[in-house]
């Protein structure tokens, strides 16, 4: 079995505070991996370490088969990243942002034009090419951010709370895009606080105060709760609350 992402004993300390504690997991190629956990549990920190944005205090990681500590440059060509905070250029137009990332990924002019058309269509941004990005509303911004992160056809996509703060319709549109990418063989690691979204992942990793508690399919996770609790048909939200309550009492 080939893995898109492999993490072994990932640990990150900020001074004395341990934000991520000995986390290990693997994500299969082509999988949609949901990363769940309450605020401040360490999801963003794990992703940033995988992206090479910060160095782990301890532990090893592989992305697309390359070691994160050595082959950052190779990895960066194969991954796309959408950070939790919107991080495109707000003072550039939609098209200028796409042009910029296309250029930075070294796309040829012809390919860039083709990808731009595709992305504008996919993100429902046609006719807004000349809009200054800061004037876009939430859903459009996020679809543009996704567009910029996949302009180079990455193998693996990291989405850190991509749907935070957008309306249900925009969320559904966004997840339609994620499925499409997944069908095309892209591995996706996504963090979210929406349990209906988590429901659609192949695997869920649940992280709590820096510790990875469970790693399973959504259905198995529900069983886990049923085993430990009396609940006829628990939703993932029940699972989330259950785990936090249980762990919180420790």
């Amino acid at each position: 079995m080939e893995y898109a992402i492999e993490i072994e004993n990932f640990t990150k300390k900020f001074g004395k505070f341990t934000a991520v504690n000995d986390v290990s997991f693997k994500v299969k190629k082509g999988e949609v991996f949901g990363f769940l956990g309450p605020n401040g549990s360490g999801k963003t920190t794990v992703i940033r370490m995988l992206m090479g944005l910060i160095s782990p205090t301890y532990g090893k990681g592989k992305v697309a088969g390359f070691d994160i500590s050595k082959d950052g440059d190779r990895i960066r060509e194969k991954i796309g990243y959408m950070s939790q905070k919107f991080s495109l250029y707000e003072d550039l137009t939609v098209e200028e942002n796409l042009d910029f990332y296309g250029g930075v990924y070294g796309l040829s002019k012809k390919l860039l034009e083709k990808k731009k058309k595709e992305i504008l269509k996919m993100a429902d941004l046609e006719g807004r090419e000349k809009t200054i990005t800061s004037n876009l509303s939430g859903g459009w911004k996020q679809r543009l951010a996704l567009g910029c992160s996949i302009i180079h056809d990455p193998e693996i996509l990291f989405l850190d709370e991509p749907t935070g703060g957008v309306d249900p319709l925009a969320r559904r549109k966004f997840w339609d895009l994620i499925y499409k990418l997944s069908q095309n063989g892209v591995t996706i690691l996504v963090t979210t606080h929406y349990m209906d979204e988590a429901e659609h992942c192949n695997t869920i990793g649940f992280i709590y105060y820096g510790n990875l508690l469970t790693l399973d399919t959504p259905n198995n996770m529900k069983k886990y709760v049923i085993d430990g609790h009396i609940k006829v048909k628990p939703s993932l939200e029940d699972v989330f609350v259950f785990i936090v309550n249980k762990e919180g009492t420790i």
Partner: protein
Amino acid sequence: MNFNVKRVLAVIRKEFYQIKRDKRTIAIILLMPIMELLLFGYAASTSVDHISTVVFNNDMGRESQELLDGFTNSQYFDIDYIAYSMDDVHHYIDDGYSKAGIVIPPEFSENIKSGKTAQIQLVVDGSDPTSAQTILSSAGGVAQAMSVEIIGDNAIKTMPQPLDLRSRVWYNPDMSSINFNVPGLIGVILQTVTLMLTSFSIVREREKGTMEQLIVTPISKMELMVGKIIPYVIIGFIDIILALALSVFWFKVPVAGSIGLLLFFSVIFLFSALGVGLLISTISKSQLQAMQLSMFMIMPNILLSGYMFPREAMPKVIQTISNIFPLTYFIKVLRGIILKGNGFSSLKNEFIILVIFGIAVLAMATFKFKKKIY
């Protein structure tokens, strides 16, 4: 390290879009050079003429009287006080009545008549070095003019130098302080503008979060730095042309040397100045810190580079410190080309130093830049 021109071009284009949409940046680029040049240019020119002067004349001859007339006629010196002793002269200058004192020794007329070199002593109030500099150069000009006249009048044409005024300043024969000031001012403006523009360029992206997205792309440090620098080299170039045009057409400063050489040196200097800005931007944790750091850099640059005060008058330690500023060399180059008409061969050392400095500081900025968020 890989280097892909496409990536660099993408960064350059992006920077230009951002500059185009930022009014503050546009103001710094276009208004600051004009304003600084006009403000400093005029401020520096106010103290040029009608300098209140005290005279202590030990010589009763006609020649010394003619000399003093020459000073008065130049419009630069007003003989307001007559002193009867050296102490008197000091008193007038110490108490601020006069800015300059002219002391003529007893044998002055005698020396001129017999074809010997006649000395004059000039006492200048050094508390304001800028005007002191002007006074020195003005007096030098008057003495020069008088010498020519004396030689013309005198039968003994072989006399090498009839008047000896030790504190003569050779450049700037028009005796205009603006001619002397403007070249240095151009350097100061270029330094200030480029530093203000680039010192934010990296740290702003860090603060806004756009850096996080940028550094997960395959762009290399070198590509990013080059892409960040080139737009400002172009802008700095526009600024120098703007400043030069204003100097030549508005202030009527004559350019003795080659404009092409001057522009060439400007580009060389820009790389150093921008490199310093990028370095500041790279090591700063916030835009505020970047601003403080660049202010911290600009002050000593203006004070010590020789723009304000002659470096020769500075203590050795300060002179040594001022050697680390690229502006020091650039001002030398500017004055050399504009005032003295220097060619490349007399500025070779400055060229080498500026190139080395530029490469070093850019390498340092690139080295210090980490593809990490903290």
